[in-house]
């Protein structure tokens, strides 16, 4: 009895060709993906092989970069004296937190509010640069007050600075500004009865000028940040 060789099975040759095509495509993908990630800031998953040698896309670790998801940008609760963001604003991530003593704790798992703030005690949040966001202000919590500066108030008299990037973007920009202010980089500083007012030139766009004046001037871009502090506690901060 003649047995047809496996290689002559038409189905087998199609499967082989398909397999080669997959390998070629995977090879092209693995070469191109890092370049696309670099060029466009994407986060395409890498290709990896499992224990059985099967090629598959590696799972994306969205928290790797500390970047918040779109859910981080949802509105916040406004209970008096408390800050109650939606659950999605807290990211469980292997964080690189940097407490006020400046030592980095790598791999520490924390719940970070807006991908940045660590709750150091009830309703008190600390940024990587050591800024504290605590209860207070007309809005009940400094974070709720800060949230005013993530959207325009076109009818507000005068100017109203609006940060780019909503809450996560605002918090990062404020931290960068504070970092510069501490090093006295392009910063003016004024101290008044325990309050410190920094005006920091960020060297590029951080938001825009809104409010009635901003509207009149067609909402010019803002490249400076003003931060009002009491010690390391944030009273307010806005772009200008």
């Amino acid at each position, binding site marked *: 009895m003649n047995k047809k060789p496996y290689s002559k099975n038409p189905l087998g040759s199609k499967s082989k060709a398909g397999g080669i095509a997959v390998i070629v495509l995977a090879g092209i993908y693995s070469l191109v993906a890092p370049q696309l990630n670099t060029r466009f800031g994407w986060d395409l998953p890498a290709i990896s092989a499992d224990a059985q040698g099967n090629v598959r896309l590696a799972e994306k670790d969205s928290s790797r970069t500390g970047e918040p998801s779109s859910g981080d940008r949802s509105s916040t609760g406004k209970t008096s*004296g408390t800050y109650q963001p939606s659950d999605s604003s807290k990211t469980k991530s292997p964080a690189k937190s940097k407490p006020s003593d400046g030592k980095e704790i790598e791999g520490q798992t924390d719940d970070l509010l807006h991908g940045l703030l660590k709750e150091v005690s009830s309703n008190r949040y600390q940024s990587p640069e050591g800024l504290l966001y*605590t*209860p*207070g*202000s*007309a*809005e*009940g919590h400094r974070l709720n007050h800060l949230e*005013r500066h993530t959207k325009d*108030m*076109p*009818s*507000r*008299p*005068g*100017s109203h*600075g609006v940060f780019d990037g909503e809450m996560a973007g605002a918090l990062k920009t404020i931290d960068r500004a504070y970092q510069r202010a501490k090093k006295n980089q392009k910063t003016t500083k004024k101290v*008044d*009865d*325990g*309050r410190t*007012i920094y005006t920091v030139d960020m060297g590029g766009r951080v938001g825009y000028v809104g409010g009635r004046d901003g509207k009149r001037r067609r909402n010019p871009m803002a490249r400076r940040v*003003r931060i*009002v502090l*009491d010690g390391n*506690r944030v*009273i*307010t901060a*806005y772009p*200008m």
Partner: protein
Amino acid sequence: MYPLHSIDFCPICGGGLCGIRIIGSLPADSNNDDSADSATATASATAADAQNSSLAQPHGLVICDECEAIWLEPDVSTVHQYPDLEKAASPVNGMPIWGDGSRWASMEDIEWLGWTEAVNPELDAELDADSDSEEKLV
């Protein structure tokens, strides 16, 4: 949540509005009821109540809506002060400046305070603005 009527931009932080805020209820607020009710309320007031009411006298403050600097009179060239960070209270009688018993002053409130002359009409909130009109009144 910004002032209905302001006297100037904040000379401290530069970005805030120095708005007029009224702490406590105006006598007119309680006189809106029928006079019979008012009479009953007055009759039941004790000496202790009278003492407390002097502390609860409505009064005006000028407050920056950004940095919370406070002026006791409608003139930002006078001495300012800052409230407690977490429990901001009136320097006059200790009542919360952001609580239920206070509000950004309306023109009627300002007339009652006798501060009308200090108001800069160019800094008035637009009452018919489509957005955040509800917030403005808080």
